[in-house]
């Protein structure tokens, strides 16, 4: 199953709605980069509201796709990280320190507009 990537003005919108297996995560990495290239989007919001756990593999895939997008010239904001996910990520030792985050999709889009406005 592929994760849908929507285009909204000059941004891409991704809402991950089900548990990620390894293949889906890797496929998403590739799909997002192609979509950035195709659409010349300069911002991406990835919403994780429905995700109830993130392990080190998925954290790496996410971190990598953020760095890759940056290389291509697109900024990524992650939104909707649940309390349980934030706690387990820190306990795993994964802070995602340089990653832009926001509470929800709406705030994520606002943050992206600010970032792109600078």
């Amino acid at each position, binding site marked *: 199953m592929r994760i849908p990537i929507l285009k909204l003005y000059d941004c891409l919108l991704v809402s991950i709605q089900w548990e990620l297996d*390894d293949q889906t995560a890797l496929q998403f990495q590739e799909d997002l980069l192609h979509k950035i290239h195709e659409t010349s989007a300069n911002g991406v919001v990835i919403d994780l509201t429905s995700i109830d*756990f993130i392990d*080190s593999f998925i954290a790496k895939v996410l971190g990598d796709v953020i760095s890759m997008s940056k290389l291509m010239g697109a900024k990524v904001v992650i939104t909707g990280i*649940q*309390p349980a996910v934030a706690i387990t990520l820190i306990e795993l*030792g994964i802070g995602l320190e340089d990653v832009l985050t926001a509470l929800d999709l709406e705030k994520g889009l606002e943050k992206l507009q600010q970032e792109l406005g600078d």
Partner: protein
Amino acid sequence: MSIQSCVTIINEWDIVAARQLGRNVAKELGFGTVDQARITTAISELARNIYLYAGKGQICIDKLNDAGKAGLRIHAADNGPGINDIRQVMEDGFSTSGGLGAGLPGVKRLMDDFHIESETGSGTQIKATKWLR
């Protein structure tokens, strides 16, 4: 007293099956959402390590009941290459596969008890327990 159910880990889909089993048992036992996430994450780490480094193995989930204390134990077992230097693999950031090296030290922090036994050439056994508070 303990009741056990197991998932054989051979491919990536078995990793998904193992963590779903773990989450279901954690829910059944009455763990809250944060502990459910801790347990699911720990199982995912151990199952993926089996898949990546041993090729094949087993994840068993035990419901524990010790003198009125309830808990969930993850038992990961494989007959893979084993681990040479256990202290090294328990360090944050150590990885032989280009991973984050967060798995094993992470599991230790996510769970209450952690026990690892490994012999080069004959495999690895890891037991990690979360107690219900």
